[in-house]
C-alpha cells in the first residue's frame, strides 16, 4: 500500500508542471513584460476586431439575433485559438527544442537530476507557455460568446477536450522530432513537415478509405459539435454523426480522443527513451510490435465498414461525394489495386519499424558486453541490442493477418462477385511480405545501414527497370514483369493477383508465374543469408566474450 502511495506521489511530483524547474525557467524567459505586452496587444486587437465583425455584421446585415450572432463567433474564435496553440505553439516547441539541441543546452538538462517525465513535462508546457497565455487572452471573448449565444456547456467541453488533446499531440510531435533528429538544423524543418503531413496530407487519404487519419485532427470533433448549433455551416463538412469501427458505432469525440491519445503516448514514449539515453532506439522491440499491431487494428477496423458503401474505392468515393449516378461496379485493376496498395502500406510500415528496432553491430556488442558483465549468457529479449528477428516475425504476423482480413472482407462484399480468392491466397500474401522483410532485417543487422540501403537500392532499380521495359514495348512486358518481381516493393501487389482466381489484368498468368519464380528465388537465397546472419552473431559474441575475459 505504501509502495503504491509512493508511486502515486512520485507520479504527481513528476507531472506537477507548475513546480518543474524547466517550466519555471521558460516562464521566466518567455513571459518577460515586453514580449508579453507586445504579443498580447496583437492578439487582443486582432481577436477583438474579428470577433466584433462576426458578432455585429450578421446582426445588421442578415438581421440575426444577438444569440445567433454570438454562436456564429465561435468558429472564427476557435480558428484564432488553433492558430495560436496548434501552429504558433507547435512551431515554438519544435524551434525551441531544436535550438536547445544546437546550442548544447540539452546536454545540461540530460545531466540534471530530473526524471525523464519531469523533462518531458517541463519542455512540453514550458516552451509554448507564451502561446498558452495568448490563448488565455482570447477566453473573455469565448465567455461572451457562450453566455450571449447560450451555447450548451456540453458542446464546449467536447470541443475543447478534443482541442486540448490535439494541441498536446501536435506539441509532442514537434518535441519528438526535435529530440530524434540528430541533425538539429533539419529537426525544425522535419517537425513542421510532419505536422503539415499529419494535418493536411494524411487526412486526404480518406478517399482511399484511410479515414482514421482524419481523426488525428480536431476537425471531425469541431464539425460534429458545431453542427449542433450551426447546422448549415457544418452540413457540407461532415455528414457522419458516428464512427464505424468494425461492427461498432463509436462516438466521434470518443474515437478521436482515443486515437489522438494513443498517438500522444507513443510519441511520449519516444521522447522518454531519448531522455533516458540518447542512443536508445526510438521505440523498444515489444513496443514496436504493439504499435504496429495497433496501427493495423485501427486501419482495418476503420476501412472494413467502408467497403459496402464503396467509400474505399477512389472511383466510387468521388462519384458518391459528387452525387453522380453510376453503375456501382469496379474494374479489375481497381479490384487488385486496393488490396495491393494495402499490402504495400503494410510492408512499408513494417520495414520502417523493423529498421528502427534493429541494432547496429556496435549496439549489439554493447549488449553482449552488458550481458557478460552481469553474468548472463544472453541479451534480454526486449533489449535494444537483441536481434530483431523474432520481433520481425511478430510484425509480419500482425501485418499479414490485417491484410488477409481486409482482403477477405473485400472479397466477401458485392464488389468482388466477379472474382474469387484462391484457397491458399493468404500463404502467398504472407510470403510476399515475409521474405523481403526478413531479407531487410538480416541485411540491416549484419551489414548495418549500408546493407539496408543497398538492398533497397536493388529493389528500387529492379522496380524502375521493369516499369521502363514495360513502357518501351508490349513485347517486353513478360521480361518487365520478371524484372519487376525481383523488387520487394512489387511482391505485395503481385501476390494479390496470384491469390485471385479470375482474370484481373491481361497478363495475369505471366504475373503469377513471375511471382512464384520470385518467391522461389527469395526462398533459395534465404539459407545463404541466414548463414551470414548466424556467422555475424557468433563472431560478435566470440569477440565480446574474448574482450570481457581479458
Amino acid at each position, binding site marked *: 500500500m505504501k509502495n503504491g502511495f509512493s508511486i502515486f506521489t512520485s507520479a504527481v511530483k513528476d507531472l506537477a508542471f507548475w513546480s518543474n524547474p524547466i517550466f519555471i*525557467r521558460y516562464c*521566466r*524567459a518567455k513571459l518577460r513584460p515586453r514580449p508579453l505586452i507586445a504579443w498580447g496587444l496583437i492578439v487582443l486587437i486582432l481577436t477583438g476586431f474579428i470577433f466584433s465583425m462576426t458578432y455585429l455584421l450578421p446582426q445588421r446585415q442578415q438581421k440575426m439575433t444577438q444569440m445567433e450572432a454570438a454562436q456564429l463567433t465561435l468558429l472564427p474564435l476557435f480558428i484564432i485559438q488553433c492558430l495560436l496553440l496548434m501552429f504558433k505553439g507547435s512551431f515554438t516547441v519544435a524551434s525551441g527544442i531544436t535550438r536547445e539541441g544546437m546550442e548544447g543546452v540539452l546536454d545540461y538538462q540530460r*545531466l*540534471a*537530476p530530473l526524471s525523464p517525465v519531469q523533462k518531458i513535462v517541463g519542455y512540453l508546457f514550458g516552451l509554448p507557455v507564451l502561446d498558452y497565455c495568448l490563448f488565455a487572452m482570447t477566453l473573455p471573448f469565448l465567455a461572451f460568446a457562450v453566455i450571449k449565444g447560450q451555447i450548451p456547456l456540453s458542446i464546449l467541453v467536447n470541443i475543447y477536450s478534443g482541442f486540448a488533446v490535439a494541441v498536446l499531440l501536435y506539441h509532442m510531435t514537434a518535441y519528438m522530432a526535435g529530440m530524434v533528429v540528430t541533425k538539429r538544423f533539419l529537426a525544425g524543418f522535419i517537425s513542421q513537415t510532419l505536422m503539415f503531413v499529419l494535418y493536411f496530407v494524411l487526412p486526404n487519404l480518406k478517399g482511399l478509405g484511410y479515414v482514421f487519419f482524419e481523426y488525428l485532427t480536431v476537425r471531425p470533433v469541431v464539425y460534429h459539435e458545431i453542427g449542433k448549433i450551426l447546422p448549415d455551416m457544418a452540413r457540407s463538412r461532415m455528414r457522419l454523426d458516428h464512427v464505424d469501427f468494425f461492427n461498432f458505432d463509436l462516438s466521434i469525440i470518443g474515437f478521436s480522443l482515443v486515437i489522438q491519445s494513443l498517438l500522444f503516448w507513443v510519441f511520449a514514449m519516444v521522447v522518454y527513451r531519448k531522455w533516458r539515453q540518447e*542512443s536508445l532506439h526510438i521505440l523498444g522491440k515489444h513496443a514496436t510490435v504493439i504499435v504496429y499491431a495497433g496501427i493495423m487494428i485501427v486501419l482495418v477496423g476503420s476501412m472494413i465498414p467502408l467497403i459496402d458503401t464503396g467509400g474505399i474505392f477512389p472511383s466510387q468515393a468521388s462519384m458518391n461525394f459528387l452525387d453522380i449516378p453510376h453503375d456501382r461496379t469496379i474494374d479489375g485493376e481497381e479490384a487488385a489495386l486496393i488490396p495491393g496498395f494495402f499490402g504495400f502500406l503494410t510492408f512499408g510500415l513494417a520495414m520502417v519499424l523493423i529498421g528502427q528496432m534493429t541494432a547496429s553491430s556496435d549496439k549489439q556488442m*554493447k549488449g553482449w558486453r*552488458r550481458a557478460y558483465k552481469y553474468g548472463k549468457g544472453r541479451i534480454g529479449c526486449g533489449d535494444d541490442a537483441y536481434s530483431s528477428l523474432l520481433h520481425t516475425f511478430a510484425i509480419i504476423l500482425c501485418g499479414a493477418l490485417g491484410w488477409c482480413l481486409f482482403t477477405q472482407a473485400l472479397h466477401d462484399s458485392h464488389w468482388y462477385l466477379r472474382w474469387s480468392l484462391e484457397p491458399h491466397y493468404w500463404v502467398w500474401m504472407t510470403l510476399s511480405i515475409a521474405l523481403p522483410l526478413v531479407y531487410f532485417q538480416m541485411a540491416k543487422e549484419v551489414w*548495418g545501414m549500408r546493407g539496408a540501403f543497398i538492398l533497397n537500392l536493388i529493389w528500387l532499380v529492379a522496380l524502375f527497370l521493369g516499369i521502363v521495359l514495360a513502357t518501351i514495348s508490349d513485347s517486353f512486358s513478360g521480361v518487365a514483369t520478371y524484372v519487376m518481381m525481383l523488387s520487394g516493393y512489387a511482391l505485395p501487389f503481385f501476390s494479390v493477383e496470384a491469390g485471385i482466381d479470375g482474370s484481373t489484368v491481361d497478363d495475369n498468368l505471366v504475373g503469377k508465374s513471375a511471382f512464384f519464380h520470385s518467391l522461389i528465388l527469395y526462398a533459395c537465397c534465404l539459407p545463404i543469408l541466414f548463414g551470414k546472419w548466424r556467422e555475424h552473431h557468433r563472431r560478435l559474441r566470440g569477440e565480446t566474450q574474448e574482450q570481457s575475459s581479458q
Partner: protein
Amino acid sequence: MSVTPTSTAAISIKGVRVDYESFTAVRSLDLEIYPGEVFGLIGPNGAGKTSTFKVLSTLLEPTYGEVYIDGIDIAEQPEEARRRLGSMQDLAPVPTDLKVWEFLDCFAHAYGLNKAERRQRINECLEMVDLVGKRDAMCQSLSRGMTQRVVLAKCLLHSPRVLLLDEPASGMDPVSRVRLRDTIQELSRKGVAVLISSHILTELSNLCSHIGILNHGELLDHGPTRDVVQRMTKDHSFRLIQIKTLGANAELAAFLDEREGVLDLVAEESQVRFKFSGSPQDQADLLKEIIQQGLAITSFEETETNIEDILLGLNTVPGSTQSSPPLNPAV
C-alpha cells in the same frame, strides 16, 4: 596496466573502449583519479579526450569497460553518478534568454535546493567565479570568458565530488585564468577530484598535480606531472638546445644543419631550437664554434622538456606506447 576499482578513487576507469562503428576513439583506458587530485588529460585533436569526457559524464555509453564515479557504477546508476559530478563541456553554452541567476536557479532547483538555499548557493558560486556583479545580467550579454565562468558556477552548485572540465579556460583573459586556477586549486584542497583537458598547456603545467597523455585513444603514460615529464624524456641521449639570435638566423641554421649530432632543427624568427645528441664537451665545442663563426647570438641555453614538447612530440603511429619528443612542431 589493469586497475581494480577501489573505494577511495573518485574516478575509476577500467578497460574503457569507445567505438563509433568501425572507428575506435578510445582503446582500453585504465585510470584512477583520487580526491584532491587535479588531473590533466593531454593529447592532440582526435586523441579521444572528448569521448572520454562524454563517457565520464554519462552522455556516452562505452563499448567496453566500466567507470565508477565516487564508487558508483555509472552504467548501473547514472542518475546517482550525475548527482556527484559537475561537467563542463568545451565552449559550454548558456541559454541566451535567461539572466545569470535564472540560469543557475533552474539547475539549483533541479538539484532539490529550496528557495533560500538556492539564493545562498548561487551567490556563493558566483563569488567563487568572481561574477557576483553579473548576477542580474542577461547571459546573452556575457563575454566568452564570463560565459565559461557562469557554466563553471553551474557545475559547482551541487558541490560535486568530481569535476570534469573540458577546455575550461577557452576565451578567458589572463586574469580570469588565474582566478580559475585559484578556484580549481581551492576545490582540490576541499577534496574534489578534477579532471581537466586544456590546449593551453602552460596552464596545465602550473595547475595539474597529475597528467595523463592520450594519443590515438591510448593512454601513453600517467602519474604525477613531474614524473611523467621525466619519464617521457629519459633514456633519450639528447639535449634540447635553444639559441636566441640577434636578427636573422638563416646563417646560423645553415651552419647547425651541417653539424653532426644536430636533429630536428627549427628556425624561428629570432631563435633556433634543436636536439643535440653529443656529450657536454661536444656541446661546449659547438658553442665555441658558433662564436668563432661570428654569428650574432644573444643566448645559448639547454631547456627542459615540458608538457608542450611532449604533446608536440607525440608519435603519430597508432598503438605506439613509446614516444620520443622531437622539438619540431612542424612534425
